């Protein structure tokens, strides 16, 4: 993974009106606090070594009430596609899918190494997930519709998305 992949990712996100915040693991909690609006719900970050939401205002584990009333949902992001600014959300039993979907604001946490260049390059990731009976979602930009006569953002899914990029050092 080269710097330029991350730069491409950032500029694709910008085109989608999504801002990307770089943070080192040490500053993770402060970064999260600066981005979320309360109440916030999150998925425990078990798969991310050294990162946790426990010392933040983000509530875990998710409940139906939290899904319904939270302003922000915080989730891990399995892979990201630089070319399109796409977040590959890997569904899991912790609730990444609904937490990234119900609240009007989604904060996706991406590890630098998980940013890949193209749709093609996440093929292997998808293939192994599907083979194991798992599901993933490409989320590109915010939920929107043109069905009411002009483009409106924030329909059944989030109206705002933020990306937190965990840099190695």
């Amino acid at each position, binding site marked *: 993974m080269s710097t330029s992949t991350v730069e491409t990712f950032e500029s694709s996100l910008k085109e989608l009106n999504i801002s990307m915040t770089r943070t080192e693991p040490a500053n993770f909690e402060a970064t999260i606090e600066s981005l979320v609006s309360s109440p916030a719900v999150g998925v425990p970050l078990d798969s991310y070594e050294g990162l946790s939401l426990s010392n933040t205002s983000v509530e875990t*584990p*998710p*409940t*139906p*009430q939290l*899904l*319904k009333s939270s302003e922000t949902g915080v989730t891990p992001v399995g892979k990201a596609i630089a070319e*399109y600014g*796409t977040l590959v959300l890997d*569904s*899991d*039993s*912790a*609730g*990444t*899918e*609904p937490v990234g*979907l*119900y609240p009007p604001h989604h904060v996706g946490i991406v590890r630098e190494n998980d940013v890949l260049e193209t*749709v*093609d390059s996440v*093929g292997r990731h*998808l*293939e192994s*997930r*599907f*083979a194991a*009976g*798992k*599901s*993933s*979602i*490409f*989320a*590109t*930009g*915010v*939920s*929107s*519709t*043109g*069905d*009411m*006569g*002009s*483009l*409106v953002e*924030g*329909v*059944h*899914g*989030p109206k705002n998305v933020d990306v937190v990029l965990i840099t190695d050092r």
Partner: protein
Amino acid sequence: MSSQRTRRRKAEQLRTLLETQSESIQKNVDHLNQARYEAVNRFERFEELRSEARKIKENSIEELPSLLETLQDQVEANGGHVYLAKDAEDANRYITNVAASKDAETLVKSKSMTTEEIEVNDALEEIGVDVWETDLGEFVLQVAEEAPSHLVGPSLHKSRDEVATLFNRVFEPDEPFETAEELTEFARDYLGDQIREADIGMTGANFILAESGTITLVTNEGNARKSAVTPNTHIAVAGVEKVIPNADTLQPFVELISKTATGQDLPQYVSMLTPPVESPTIDFDEPDAPLGSGDAEREFHLVLIDNGRMEMRDDEQLKETLYCIRCGACANSCGNFQHVGGHAFGGETYTGGIATGWEAGIEDLQTAGEFNDLCTGCSRCVNACPVKIDIPWINTVVRDRLNRERAPSDFEFLVEGLTPDSEETVDLQKRFFGNFDTVATLGSATAPVSNWLANLGPVRALMDRAFGIAPERDLPEFKRETLADWFANRGSTVPEATAERTVVLYPDVYTNYVLTNRGKAAIHTLEALGVHVELATPIESGRAPLSQGMIQTATNLAEDVAADLRPHLDEGRDLVMIEPSDLAMVRREYDKLLDADAFERLSENSYDVMEYVYGLLANGADINELAEVNDSIAYHSHCQQRTMGVDAYTEAVFEEFGVDFVTSDVECCGMAGSFGYKSQYYELSMDLGSNLAEQFEGTDRTIVASGTSCTEQLSTLFRREVTHPIEVIAPSGP
């Protein structure tokens, strides 16, 4: 019903839509088109992925039975259920049984054309299940009790004001809705409640991966995501043609579908779910218990619909329809669709150009016949389709089949001498236009008397009654001296032995009998640039009968043309053509009508006349031998010319001349061969023409068009002479 009555009824229906829906449809579709052109232009691998996607679909349909088997095994191994339904009734029986077994009271749906096809909402409501459409466009239609008018934007025939009026009447809010934001917010909250309470979530599936049992859903709103994972029970309904092998074969579609559908680089959401999904169950009745903590389990049913598809698979001509990923680009790129939308240009479920294939396959020929004539064969959809379906050809094939079923008319005696294709059942209007070469030969032989006669009131009335020729239209004026006569008397002025190049010029029917000046201009130009010209025998290319669905007649003509041209090609002559629709025959449609060798030989050696001139100039021919061009020009190229990408040569030649010119950018002039002459379509044709008229409104430039139809349409619109580009640059000569 008499043919004339049928035609009047059709005209009436189109008129109503032009008055009520046209504005909204045009606005929305224009926007989709613009975005599509931009998305495709900035995506370098578009053509490469189209070919890939096409191959994947070809292979998948070929191997469908074994893919279905793999899929069924895999879904069951994953813990889901698969039901292969032979038709709508069968599917609905299964689905209502599942609903009953769950004691379901409500079901939420995301957008799915296939569920429209089987009318599952009615079946569910009959057993007391409340069904809610969660796609906002579908929701609008559910509230309005209307049918979708577009594959992707089902309610795009409705303006915001209309939706606001509808919602204010039905939902009686305290503060009336006005803006799109207010309407969206209301619908989201309203449907959000329904989704949380629903017992079952129903989705379609854009693609299904056989090897893993993964279904792919493409949405922008996020409603499919919610509908699929909020209720514990998920039913996915899809046509059998949606199955492809695996994630690898999914990739090109993911990158293509929204580019051609809405002009977005990727859809907002592509859900790739391998159900029953791992996401925890969500019980809104236990608001504070962590997700997934109850003992509820997820249940998944995949209902695969045949409903005629397996028969389509065995039908060499209709089979291609099954490759369709329902992106709607063929509708958006279609001039007629832009003006009347899917309520006219569509059948029971499907809309736009490809609807002919779908409706013929899943309903019947007659259903497709209701709207099939709205495809004029302009071919603007051909380059738009992400899976390279030859949509005009499917329309032609269905037209041909319909022709064979039609009952003979009372006016049969009028068309003696007009080839009735293989059987005498083609309707008279189609036979008249399909045999335009015969009409032209007679007209020319008896000109100018035939021209005077044809324009007399009683004759026009009879023409309307018998053939449905719109009395408002000027008829072509046949020349007594045809181009072939003129050339036979005059001969060539550049001897073949000394010429740099030699060509055989094809005198299409219009050039030969009506617009002879453009033929002479072509000869003068070529000769001035040192080219020896031979004139081919004037044999109609087959375009006229093909456009009427008379494939046999068209094939016979194509073979005659090929036989006539063969010796010329043997002599090493290049084939030069003036009429773009005939060039398109040779380059595209002959592929279907002739054997591969004959087709390749003709298509590879054929040139648009301006393309040829461009080539000559680029290879050192002296532009000073041609006319001096001082006029500024308004140029309208031809739909099929654009599909072939040869319009650029005319513009390039104008540039060589330093001409000040503007070009139109409408998809179609509206005339489209015989279409604009037909009384039932006259108004629609003029409505399309008005867009073109707007582009050149008030211009004092010389109006120039490449195609005959466009020339006629523009002459009607502007009441002045419209010439071919070759006439602009041709030097005078003998």
